[in-house]
């Protein structure tokens, strides 16, 4: 084994700014030949921006980039591949209608005398697949393959040709145990050949098994590069989450009264929610924490009627609620705020007025006998948007031109168009800036103080800890903890996440 210790890749002071966000702020990174270097951090910490800079997808605004000791400028994806930087992104770069073999050589087909040399390509592809030990049929169309096999094809594609630096972005997310084992063996072989590997993962077990060094990023900044062997799991989590308090959470007065939402043994189709018991009371915020994909979003979506229920009962204010649908939920006073406002919340081409009034149009103050009361609508929405301090207060502007914070205000405006008593927030502050976050928190505080039942689902732990009176923790579709008062701490939540960290689908996000 010949591990050369001079750096393969060396980045100094890399910064990358996107409109309104500094995604990377003076980051240094050094990857040695034959090393597996893990990038660790929360969503939005800058990991994917960084690997995109290394792969040539984004040009950095500032900083120096050395590869094999040579300064590199104006990198683009094709050139990155030429010099031996090969990325495997989570978004596959495969064409579903082409075969595995065609995909492997896409853009670098072997040509002799102007003709595609199929035989040479086939031999090379077969040798590669055999070396990798992948169980992959070269003649199948990629679209017919399972996600795991597509992942293998993607990895195989990245290893065709001479690779010096391999970038793997959560490569085991869709692999089985056995396939993951194969990948580990492959990684060991590549390391022995002196290939440097940048590996993005949230899985502690995997990091333990593979990492030589770990670089922790937070809010676009380098926190620390550390030797894997010398750092404990809890130290890593502390490095990752120990952010400065950048938002002052409002003090919320919880005065819990009756049970507004009572869920017994609820399961949804596909078991993303599996046998959950849950209660939300009026006059308090009930939080649900959990990792991405743990089923916490699906739980509130099931209550609202967006997720098909397989089993269990829902009661709203003591009355059974049989087959929830959004239309009936709204009539029963349940408001839902989706996490993805672009995909599920707003019609971007339509004005603020129409988006805000959407859930209330059937009310008498908005329409009679199917005919809209446009003047009444305008006046009411203008009043609501003034109350929410929409700046600028132009309710006829299309929602597509608004910032994340203003888009969320349009969504919040919906809650004021009619009488709601139960509010389900799914990631209420995702993608919005600090000032707007505070306004959202104050809005939620106002609802609770007026006696509403509020459920806040959030992947952002400090947020859900600070807002909620009682906090449920979900994992793999089940409630694994219910925390209250002084039990409600970050350590306890994280502990319940990692209680069964042997499961391969654990992700800290």
């Amino acid at each position, binding site marked *: 084994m010949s591990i050369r210790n001079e750096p393969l890749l060396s980045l100094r002071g890399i910064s990358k700014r996107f*409109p*309104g*966000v500094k995604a990377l702020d003076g980051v240094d990174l050094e990857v040695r030949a034959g090393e597996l270097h893990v990038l660790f951090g929360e969503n939005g910490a800058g990991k994917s921006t960084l690997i995109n800079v290394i792969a040539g997808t984004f040009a950095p605004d500032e900083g120096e980039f050395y590869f094999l000791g040579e300064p590199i400028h104006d990198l683009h994806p094709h050139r990155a591949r030429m010099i031996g930087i090969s990325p495997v992104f989570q978004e596959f770069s495969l064409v579903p209608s082409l075969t595995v073999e065609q995909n492997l050589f896409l853009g670098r087909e072997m040509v002799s005398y102007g003709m595609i040399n199929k035989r040479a390509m086939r031999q090379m592809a077969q040798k590669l697949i055999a070396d990798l030990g992948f169980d992959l049929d070269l003649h199948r169309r990629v679209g017919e393959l399972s996600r795991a096999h597509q992942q293998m094809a993607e990895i195989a594609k990245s290893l065709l040709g001479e690779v010096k630096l391999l970038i793997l972005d959560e490569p085991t997310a869709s692999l089985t145990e056995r396939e993951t084992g194969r990948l580990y063996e492959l990684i060991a072989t590549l390391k022995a050949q002196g290939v440097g590997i940048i590996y993005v993962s949230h899985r502690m077990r995997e990091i333990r098994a593979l990492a030589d060094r770990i670089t922790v990023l937070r809010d676009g900044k380098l926190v620390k590069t550390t030797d894997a062997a010398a750092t404990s799991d809890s130290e890593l989590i502390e490095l990752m989450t120990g952010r400065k308090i950048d938002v002052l959470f409002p003090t919320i007065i919880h005065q819990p009264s009756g049970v507004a939402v009572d869920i017994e043994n609820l399961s949804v189709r596909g078991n993303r929610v599996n046998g959950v018991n849950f209660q939300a009371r009026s006059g308090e915020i009930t939080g649900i924490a959990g990792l991405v994909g743990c089923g916490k979003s699906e739980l509130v979506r099931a209550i*609202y009627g*967006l997720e098909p229920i397989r089993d269990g009962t829902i009661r709203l204010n003591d009355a059974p609620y049989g087959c929830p*649908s*959004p*239309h*009936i*939920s*709204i*009539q029963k006073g349940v408001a*839902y705020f*989706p996490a993805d406002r672009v*995909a*599920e*919340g*707003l*019609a*971007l*081409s*339509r004005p603020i007025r*129409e*988006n805000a009034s*959407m*859930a209330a*149009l*059937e009310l008498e103050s908005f*329409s009679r006998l*199917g*005919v*809209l009361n*446009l003047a009444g609508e305008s006046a009411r929405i203008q009043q609501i948007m003034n109350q929410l301090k929409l700046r600028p207060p*132009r309710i*006829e*502007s*299309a929602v*597509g*031109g*608004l*910032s*994340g*914070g*203003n888009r969320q205000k349009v969504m919040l405006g*919906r809650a004021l168009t009619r009488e709601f008593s139960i509010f389900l927030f799914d990631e209420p502050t995702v*993608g*919005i*800036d600090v000032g707007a976050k505070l306004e959202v928190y104050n809005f939620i505080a106002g609802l609770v103080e007026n006696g509403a039942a509020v459920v806040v689902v959030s992947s952002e732990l400090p947020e859900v800890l600070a807002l909620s009176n009682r906090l449920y923790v979900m994992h793999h579709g089940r409630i694994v903890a219910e925390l209250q008062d002084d039990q409600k701490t970050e350590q306890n939540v994280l502990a319940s996440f990692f209680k069964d960290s042997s499961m391969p689908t654990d992700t800290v996000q």
Partner: protein
Amino acid sequence: MNVVAHRNYTSAIAVGRATMDVGIVPLLLLVVVAAMALVEPHFYSTGNILNMVRSASFLAVVACGQALVLIAGGFDLSVGAVIALASVLAAKTMAWIGVAYPDEPGLAIAAGVLAAMASGAGVGLVNGFCVAKLRISGFVATIGTMSVTLGIALILTNGIPVYGLPGSFVQQFGRATWLGLPSTIYAALGAIALLVFVQRRTLLGRYIHAIGGNPEAAIVSGVSVFRYQTSTYVLSGVFAALTGLLLTAQVGSGQASLGGDRMMLQSIAAAVIGGVSLRGGVGRLEIVTLASLFLTVLTNALNLLRIDSRLQPVLLGVILVVAVALDELSRRNSALDSHEPT
């Protein structure tokens, strides 16, 4: 901000919005009309003007129905075939009742109108069911119903026009003039006014925009996508059938050759030139009506100028593509301009 300033500010926005929304169609129309004044005086004869307005109003009825489907994010290729079937069914029904009850022309007309409308609504329901429930793409579903519908119309007639319409239907309605205008124009304008009202002032119209703008958001807001998406296809079918009836009254017989591909293509062209986005969510029926007038006037002008009729589809195609390209360009520019930093 004080009240007066605010009023001025909002009215300035309203004016800005109006010019932006109307787009280039009125300008194009003016150009063609002005140019014809210079080259072809016959263009301005009363007969020609009435002829153009009548054709344009028929096209506009179909195009407005089509536009509602497009705004909701769909596609209706069956409108031309519905015109043919409605014409044939109306004529057959009227002729049949006319023979059975020779003294009751009113009954025959009522039954014929009902049969035509029911066929349009029926095709629309099938389209809506295929698209909203079975999740077939609107393009494929309506190509299917187009083929079936036209086939039925041809089977019913063997390609021969159906005669025997009540005289009052043809003479007192189809070919009559009221206050100097062909009577069918009133019916068509009434239909357009109704559709404009539906779009601008009713829940249905608002939900059509919402569904086209973002179907998932409409679902989350408690809007029944199935009900309203189907409604657009039913409206499109019913108003195509109405056009079939008006054409039947005008020509005096039921014909499977009425409507057809040409009407279908023109209805989509008028909608798109009139600013309806094929991505859904955006479009105004008044402008679609103007665009229908523009297309009709343009065709008429080309005919009067004795431009080879084989060249006309070429021009129409070019205009269509240019209109959509301009729309895309302006949309992209305004998206860049209006984006505030996050």
